[in-house]
């Protein structure tokens, strides 16, 4: 079975380490905040200028001056810091954020990512995505492995205009967890009940399959 969005978030959350500063993109990455393992502390960075994003507010706590990068009302946790956009992107571009999680339309075996525009469709902009992928050492891309029509999104070379070049080293899809190294995808784990054959079939880029590919496990 392909992973659900919640399972994808759970799997990404296992990559969090105690003391990490983390930027979570919109969509599945946002859900990762719900699965931070017990006993570890992470600080969430929101690129509009908040380090230490807290929970959504109660009705009484709603404050129009307190939003996240998705423009949702939010709170600051104890120990949070608030700063300007330039300061925020200094953190991001300066490589101070320990982990960035973001979605993508396509990634390729060279670590290129396309996530911000589809030619011919309405283009709304890249927001902070280009800064995030250029600045972070440690990025996890979350995406579906193939389109609804079965076309692979893990490619030899991205077709869509890039968000960043040679910057992605880990990908979690609904079928598999992979690393990108030396011009190839390396299959590290597969979703429960998903065969290596299915992953091979749905990966258009160069794929290295180790002898043993463990199956992910999830509680409940």
């Amino acid at each position, binding site marked *: 079975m392909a992973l659900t969005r919640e399972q994808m978030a759970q799997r990404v959350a296992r990559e969090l380490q105690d003391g990490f500063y983390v930027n979570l993109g919109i969509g599945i990455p946002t859900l990762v905040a719900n699965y931070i393992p017990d006993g570890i502390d992470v600080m969430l960075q929101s690129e509009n200028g908040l380090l230490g994003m807290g929970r959504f507010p109660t009705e009484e706590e709603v*404050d129009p001056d307190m939003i996240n990068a998705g423009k949702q009302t939010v709170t600051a946790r104890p120990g949070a810091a608030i700063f300007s956009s330039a300061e925020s992107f200094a953190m991001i571009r300066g490589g101070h954020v320990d982990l960035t999680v973001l979605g993508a339309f396509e990634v390729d075996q060279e670590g290129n990512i396309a996530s911000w525009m589809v030619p011919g469709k309405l283009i709304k902009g890249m927001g902070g995505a280009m*800064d995030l992928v250029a600045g972070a050492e440690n990025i996890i891309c979350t995406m579906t492995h193939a389109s609804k029509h079965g076309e692979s999104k893990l490619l030899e070379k991205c077709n869509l205009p890039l968000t960043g070049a040679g910057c992605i080293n880990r990908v979690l899809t609904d079928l598999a967890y992979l690393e990108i190294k030396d011009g190839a995808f390396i299959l590290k784990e597969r979703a429960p009940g998903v065969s290596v054959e299915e992953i091979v079939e749905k990966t258009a880029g160069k794929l290295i399959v180790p002898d043993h590919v463990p199956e992910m496990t999830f509680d409940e």
Partner: protein
Amino acid sequence: MAGFDKRVASYEEAMEGIESGMTVLAGGFGLCGIPENLIAEIKRRGVKDLTVVSNNCGVDGFGLGLLLEDRQISKIFASYVGENALFEQQMLNNEIEVVLTPQGTLAEKMRAGGAGIPAFYTATGYGTPIGEGKEERVFDGRHYILEEAIKGDFAIVKGWKADRYGNVMYRHTAQNFNPMVATAGKITVVEVEEIVEPGELEPSQIHTPGIYVDRIIQSTFEKRIEKRTVRS
């Protein structure tokens, strides 16, 4: 009182000198921390052919979205647009030129503009359509593109508190682009919720020192929320 007193009495006075064809830098992220009354004054004046530099372009009927109604903006530098139907329509009709700019690059362009730095190298956008046609250089084995600074004829800013000398503090995430915008205008206008006496603001807590600020006005704000999200 003149000297360092930056206060003006009306919005008409606050935006005195704005003309068609000018470049206006605006603070704010989404609808958070936008200079909503200064934008409304630009609408009232009807100046056209403006180049606007702002992370976003408001929503239908509010914020910078107001300036779309009478087609006052001919060009915009932004990182994310299309939160409003009118904008999409004008973009598709080529009535408005959109220069999509990565958010960090946009912030840095204005920071550099205000700091006398004409351009800077950044890895952001290298190898993407944003880097096309821009000078490239390699430092320490990494590729960078040259991005030029942005300055404006007017900078419009939303602060929280200011003193009459133009020292400004921002509130929570309403800070966002405002401090950079404030540095990069030939004329910088700040609207705030409260003007206090000099000495009341703790000097080390001031975000925008008064040297950057030309005009200050106190007002009230609607502070519309774009995505009200609460926990149950």
